[in-house]
């Protein structure tokens, strides 16, 4: 019995290069698309004015970034604490297991976003998405 029973379906031949021409084109194309997306979609330079906090898919509070405050937002797992301070908003504690929202840090620019999927809390600074696009076209 052969040791590898279906060699035609098994690994690519050892001699083949690690990256083919098509792989390199794909990588290059992916990089270009990624950079374009960054230019188009990353939050712009403009500071946001207000912040929306949504819980369970509904607006919980609309606040102003220049007004320091602390909000206790209820979610299915418990309370997410959101703090507005020094023109920025951050999640300072959350009952969710992975704490992505806490580690997202502070956001202050238009288009800024913090999402806690497990506790269904969304903090976003509304505004024109594609602020960086303006930067390019200026």
């Amino acid at each position, binding site marked *: 019995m052969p040791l*590898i029973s279906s060699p035609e379906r098994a690994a*690519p031949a050892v001699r083949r290069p690690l990256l083919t021409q098509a792989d390199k084109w794909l990588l290059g194309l992916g990089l270009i698309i990624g950079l374009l997306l960054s230019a188009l979609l990353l939050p712009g330079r403009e500071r946001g004015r207000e912040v929306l906090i949504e819980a369970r898919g509904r607006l919980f509070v609309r606040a102003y970034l220049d007004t320091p405050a602390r909000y206790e937002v209820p979610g299915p797992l418990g309370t997410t604490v959101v703090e507005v301070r020094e023109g920025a908003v951050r999640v300072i504690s959350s009952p969710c297991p992975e704490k992505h929202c806490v580690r997202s840090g502070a956001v202050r620019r238009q288009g800024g976003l913090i999402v806690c*999927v*497990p506790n269904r809390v*969304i903090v*976003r600074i509304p505004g024109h998405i594609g602020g960086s696009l303006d930067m390019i076209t200026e």
Partner: protein
Amino acid sequence: MSRPLTTKLTRLALLATAGLALFLFESLIPRPLPWIKPGLSQIATLIALYVYGWRESLAVVVLRVGLAALLTGSFAGPGFWLALPAGVTAVLVMAAARSAGGRSLSIAGVSMIGALTHNLTQLALVRLFYVRSSEIWTLLPLVWLPALFTGLAVGLAARLLIDFSRRMSLDWGTNPDGVE
């Protein structure tokens, strides 16, 4: 049960377990940015795809996601409902890319496509079910660029492991269904 089939089932079980171990290991690594995950467990998925076929690869993914959810206590939670469709879609798209790309696209290229698919699916699901506003797309470049490089690294790792298994004349068993 024939011996080659037993071998294959054993290998698949080991691949699913290896994927699970990599997944749990990865969740212990501190990450600078929360939305960037290396996706090490996809090494096992890719090996299953290339050694056996898309059905086997799908089985490895579903087993891994299910077991990981049971072990971390997040079964049927939001994380689970993001991970499962993303994993399944990634396998299907990778299988399609593999057969469409033929010999010109290597496992590394297929893996890059898989990583992008995985992240785009998750983002789209978050957009559809959790954040019903277009602000979510500000995360798109942040998941796109890392996925390109993690996909590449994962693909190369899978490639080296498959090559290594061939040099060691590892018996992968048979594929009686003739899938693919």
